[in-house]
């Protein structure tokens, strides 16, 4: 359109000028009107007024130009004013056609296109040139056939510039309508062979375009292109074509692109261009911008065509030059090149990993984006979490829409933290107030449109998010009547699929909106409707709303706008209710029991019903919870809690009594010393492993950098750590296989072990000592040994029932009837009656079991206990225990606590003199555990007297303090036999320390929603906070983040990546534990373990 304006402009002076050459514009009525227009505009103060004025002006102009009576002169005047309006940016396209008419009337100008015919036939070179330029600038498709023959003629023109422009015009035609220039393809070839370089260069545009569409049709031209490039690179062109002493750089770029397209996936064609590419790389060495442009093109071509290792090496070096360049433009291109080649050559990413990490936080968004693009391309199963954390939303609309999609697809299966964090993000906002409001307004509008659709089902969580946002921010969308929003919410209240939970959200939102509107019919209707609702909750909300509506001032104070992030002081201990509680208690009400206590009581009741006398773990936890109390500033409620537990104390005493009885029976020399020494033992390697894990993290998998580890500053270490998490699984050496990763793990361990050599040797001697003391008395007392073995068998039988009683279920549904049905329980009942002795063994299952089986083994055949493969031996692991055995086969297990999973190493040992065939190991599906890869393993053959082993990685799917993983192993000897076994796994097997800074801890803490608090009494032996914390660190594998005064913070994670944070505080002999985690069952489970270890130590 600007062309039209230009035309008009060109017409006007011609019209104005010649007719009134002497007349000053000021004196003309035309310009005086324009003058007054300008004057009135400059006198205006606001953009709004200007708009109004111009609209008026345009309206009057419109009427005037369309009127048939308007004289030529008047028309001219109108045009001038119209141009001014147009220049101010207002729409005045209606005038164009009049302008053109006017221009034609003046007979001074014809439309440019109209004159083209003449121009093209003109003998004047410049005229032809200009005509051709116009052709390639803007040209209607319909007119191509008319001018095509003329332009074809020009291809034979003697002057090279004309030929060049003709080619360019044809290129234009090719773009607009490829079919119409099909018949002149051989003329393009002629142009390519033109003796003038400029013409040839112009034809390359066409070829690039054509080859892009169909590369196979032009393979025969490869040699020509190579020849041309060779000549250009070799400096055979006239010196005119040099740019900063580089021969025709743009031509080179064009040719390299064409070659890339031709050589793609075609070894034979690629063969032809290797030499010239090498030459280009070599020549482009002067340090100038344009040579880098050529280099970049070369690199891209080399990576596009069929690969040749020599060239790839050189290209990779080139990419390095770009990436490491201090010039930001080159760095950007380097990243771009990396993005292209990263999938072919992941090692390159490894080489430049530190640069990539640095660019991740680059202030320039385009560099950041390109880096993210690289990360996106190297994403694999192992680093996806870290990479996704680095991504960000490009704009508000995208963010809201993506979250909408997440909510509607994920629905109620979403983790509760996701909607919570989303709302927090909306509410807290960023630094930019305007941006925040945009985001919120966008959200409000988007939700309103979503709710507009009738009969669409949305998940409850999504509804809640929408409702909250509408309640909080609907007033930001000023053009939306609050009444409409209220009606939407009201109609939602009546939907059957809306749960009562969501209804409460709706009422809260309605209340918030009500506080901002004066009066509303919908609210009145709503109050009336729900004041008599059968749902007491709704009725309460309705009454609240009603009373608030009566006192608008109070309502406004209560519900200030956008105050969701302001701190509200809450008396978390609910001390103001103390009086009420005391009164209730004095009237004989039952005291309040916290969740854990109730659950434990439930457990105890179950046991009482079953006449189940054992349960040391239970007793210990009860005794600890006996002194628990809600953290409260007033002694009152604390007192009431303690009194609440008093009812249980009697119960606990009976248990303790029984246990003590058993203990006495065993005597001091028989069992107790063993228990103590053994108790310490499995923990020691774990503690050592903690240290190793922590140290191992900061080192990098690539060996080249490992030497420098010590010299790195903290920040660099952080980057290195990030690098190692980002680039895991890349490169040829690492692969995706778990074996590869294991190598890395051992490497880490070795490095660490050098540092900690002395410490380790100390530990080793400790273990030896304890072993000696363990074995000593036990081997003497043979009967005890026998009992042990027996106990071990019972243990195995009883495990299913143990699982059911020890599990802290995620939900409260704790089904006793179900667990009764389990066959294991029946076994256990009969067992417990038959052999009271073995019960004791069972209650100490973790401590007792490994040693007993090991002892059994050592008594029978010491030689056949298998040992771990070397690479696992160095990781923290449990002892090798026997799982089951028959005459022919024995199965052993060793738990290896790896960083990222629990590894079960299983050993199948053939005890017979002949080979066993088709040995099949299968784990059954367990409720709580997940075996990564396949749950089965087949040993095709196990030779006589030999041991085979396999490895299984396990994660905990559903949290429980202890659970079993049942399985069976079948084999073929004389006949097919099958042995059943089960592996006991504890929550602690899946807990790993989580390293973080205090700052990160704070952030994470705030984002987590599941709280569990408990106070436990500290034993005199560990009365200091640090002693208590180090107990937790050693036994539970928690990472101590920070200790400040009498407070400490710790962090751990449940594999694969569920964090759990712990805040500890000591006061007057008590340790207040406060857990937070995104998973509701994890704090419960950990609390239980904490109580247990604190009790034991």
């Amino acid at each position: 359109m600007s062309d039209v304006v230009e035309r008009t402009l060109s017409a006007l002076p011609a019209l104005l000028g010649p007719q009134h050459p002497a007349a000053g514009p000021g004196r003309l009525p035309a310009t005086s009107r324009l003058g007054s227009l300008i004057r009135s505009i400059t006198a205006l103060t606001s953009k709004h007024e200007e708009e109004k004025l111009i609209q008026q002006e345009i309206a009057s102009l419109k009427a005037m130009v369309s009127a048939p009576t308007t004289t030529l002169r008047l028309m001219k005047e109108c045009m001038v004013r119209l141009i001014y309006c147009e220049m101010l940016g207002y729409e005045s396209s209606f005038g164009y056609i009049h302008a053109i008419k006017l221009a034609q009337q003046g007979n001074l100008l014809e439309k440019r296109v109209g004159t083209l015919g003449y121009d093209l036939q003109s003998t004047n070179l410049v005229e032809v040139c200009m005509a051709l330029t116009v052709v390639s600038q803007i040209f209607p498709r319909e007119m191509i056939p008319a001018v095509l023959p003329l332009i074809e003629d020009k291809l034979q023109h003697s002057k090279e510039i004309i030929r060049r422009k003709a080619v360019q015009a044809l290129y234009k035609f090719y773009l607009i309508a490829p079919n119409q220039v099909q018949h002149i393809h051989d003329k393009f070839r002629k142009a390519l062979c033109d003796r003038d370089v400029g013409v040839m260069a112009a034809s390359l545009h066409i070829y690039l375009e054509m080859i892009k569409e169909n590369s196979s049709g032009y393979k025969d031209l490869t040699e020509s292109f190579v020849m041309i490039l060779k000549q250009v690179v070799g400096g055979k062109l006239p010196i005119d074509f040099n740019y900063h002493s580089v021969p025709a750089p743009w031509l080179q770029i064009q040719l390299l692109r064409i070659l890339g397209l031709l050589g793609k996936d075609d070894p034979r064609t690629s063969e032809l261009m290797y030499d010239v590419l090498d030459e280009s790389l070599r020549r482009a060495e002067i340090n100038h911008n344009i040579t880098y442009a050529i280099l970049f093109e070369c690199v891209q071509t080399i990576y596009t065509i069929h690969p040749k290792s020599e060239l790839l090496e050189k290209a990779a070096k080139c990419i390095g030059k770009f990436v490491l360049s201090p010039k930001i433009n080159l760095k950007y291109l380097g990243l771009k090149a990396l993005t292209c080649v990263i999938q072919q050559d992941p090692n390159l990413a490894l080489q430049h990993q530190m640069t990539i990490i640095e660019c991740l936080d680059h202030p320039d968004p385009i560099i950041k984006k390109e880096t993210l693009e690289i990360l996106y391309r190297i994403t694999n199963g192992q680093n996806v979490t870290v990479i996704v954390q680095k991504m960000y939303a490009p704009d508000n609309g995208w963010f809201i829409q993506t979250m909408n999609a997440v909510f509607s697809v994920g629905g109620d299966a979403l983790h509760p933290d996701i909607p919570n964090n989303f709302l927090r993000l909306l509410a807290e906002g960023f630094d930019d107030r305007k941006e925040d409001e945009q985001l919120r307004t966008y959200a409000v509008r988007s939700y309103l449109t979503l709710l507009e659709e009738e009969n669409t089902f949305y998940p409850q969580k999504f509804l809640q998010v929408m409702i909250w946002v509408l309640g909080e921010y609907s007033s930001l969308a000023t053009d939306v009547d609050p009444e409409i929003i209220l009606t939407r919410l009201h109609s939602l209240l009546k939907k059957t699929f809306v749960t009562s939970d969501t209804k409460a959200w709706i009422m809260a939102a309605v209340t918030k909106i009500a506080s901002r509107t004066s009066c509303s019919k919908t609210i009145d209707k709503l109050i009336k409707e729900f004041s008599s609702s059968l749902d007491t909750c709704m009725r309460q909300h309705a009454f609240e709303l009603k009373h608030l509506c009566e006192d608008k001032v109070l309502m406004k104070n209560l519900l200030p706008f956008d105050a969701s992030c302001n701190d509200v002081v809450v008396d978390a201990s609910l001390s103001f209710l103390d009086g009420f509680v005391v009164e209730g208690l004095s009237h004989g009400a039952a005291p309040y029991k916290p969740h854990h206590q109730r659950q434990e009581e439930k457990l105890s009741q179950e046991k009482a019903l079953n006449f189940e006398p054992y349960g040391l773990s239970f007793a210990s936890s009860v005794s600890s919870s006996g002194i628990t109390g809600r953290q409260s500033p007033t002694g009152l409620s604390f007192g009431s809690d303690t009194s609440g537990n008093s009812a249980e104390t009697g119960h606990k005493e009976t248990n303790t009594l029984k246990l003590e009885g058993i203990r006495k029976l065993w005597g001091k020399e028989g069992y107790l010393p063993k228990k103590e020494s053994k108790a310490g033992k499995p923990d020691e390697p774990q503690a050592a492993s903690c240290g190793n894990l922590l140290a191992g993290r900061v080192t990098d998998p690539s060996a080249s950098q490992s030497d420098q580890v010590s010299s790195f500053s903290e920040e660099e270490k952080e980057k290195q750590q990030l690098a190692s998490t980002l680039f895991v699984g890349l490169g040829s050496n690492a692969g995706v296989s778990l074996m590869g990763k294991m190598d890395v793990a051992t490497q880490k361990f070795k490095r660490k072990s050098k540092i900690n050599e002395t410490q380790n040797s100390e530990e080793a001697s400790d273990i030896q000592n304890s072993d000696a003391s363990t074995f000593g008395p036990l081997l003497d007392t043979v009967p005890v040994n026998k009992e042990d073995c027996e106990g071990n068998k019972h243990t195995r039988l009883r495990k299913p029932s143990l699982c059911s009683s020890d599990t802290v279920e995620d939900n409260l549904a704790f089904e006793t009837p179900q667990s009764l049905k389990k066959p294991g329980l029946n076994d256990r009942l009969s067992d417990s009656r038959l052999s009271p002795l073995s019960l004791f063994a069972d209650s100490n299952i973790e401590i007792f079991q490994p040693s007993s089986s090991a002892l059994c083994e050592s008594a029978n055949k010491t030689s056949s206990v298998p040992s771990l493969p070397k690479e696992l031996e160095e990781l923290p692991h449990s002892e090798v225990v026997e799982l089951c055995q028959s005459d022919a086969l024995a199965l052993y297990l060793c738990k290896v606590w790896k960083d990222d999973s629990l590894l079960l190493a299983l050993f199948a040992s053939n005890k017979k003199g002949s080979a066993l065939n088709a040995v099949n190991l299968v784990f059954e599906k367990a409720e709580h555990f997940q075996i990564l890869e396949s749950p089965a393993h087949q040993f095709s053959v196990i030779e006589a007297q030999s041991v085979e082993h396999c490895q299984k990685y396990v994660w905990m799917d559903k949290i429980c303090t202890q659970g079993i993983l049942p399985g069976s192993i079948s084999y073929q000897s004389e006949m097919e036999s099958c042995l059943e076994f089960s592996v006991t796994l504890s929550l602690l097997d899946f807990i790993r320390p989580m390293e973080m800074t205090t700052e990160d801890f704070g952030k994470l803490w705030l984002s987590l929603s599941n709280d569990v608090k408990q106070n436990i009494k500290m034993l005199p032996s560990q009365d200091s906070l640090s002693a208590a914390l180090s107990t937790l660190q050693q036994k539970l594998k928690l990472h101590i983040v920070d200790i400040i005064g009498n407070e400490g913070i710790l962090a751990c994670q449940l594999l694969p990546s569920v964090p759990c944070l712990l805040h500890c505080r000591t006061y007057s002999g008590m340790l207040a534990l406060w857990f937070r985690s995104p998973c509701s069952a994890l704090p419960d489970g950990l609390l239980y373990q904490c109580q247990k270890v604190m009790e034991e130590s």
Partner: protein
Amino acid sequence: CGATCLHAPWQRCWNEEGVPVSEDTQQQIIRETFHLVSKRDENVCNFLEGGLLIGGSDNKLIYRHYATLYFVFCVDSSESELGILDLIQVFVETLDKCFENVCELDLIFHVDKVHNILAEMVMGGMVLETNMNEIVTQIDAQNKLEKSEAGLAGAPARAVSAVKNMNLPEIPRNINIGDISIKVPNLPTFK
């Protein structure tokens, strides 16, 4: 101070379809581009991703900053970024040669000439000529023709000069073509 954002080859978005983009969209593109480019630091790279207006992430803005002027090219993925950067340099050097010490007023009052020069270099969205001498020769030839004919291409320039010399008391110093509206600020008296 005012800055001029020269919109060079929107020709691309314009030519490929065969239909020009609407005036409104052009205005919007220029405004958005100016907004994007003007707030960039000195030490960031000269490439920039444009929004949806310029055809999504496939298209890139490549700019160079000369004093108060930004030269912005919008290119698709088939162009070499560094190549275009140098093309801008060639363009500016050529402008300098043609106008003899070019300044922004030259560009404002001789938009036609600027476009002619650009048309010699970039034709139909494709880099045609990068040889400065060749371009200057062509432009000179055209100028001669113009003078002799005083028609065609000379007309717009005269239109501009006619408007420009309409007895305005003073020519405003800061003309903001950032959002292309040539608004005359604070004219005190107008006779």
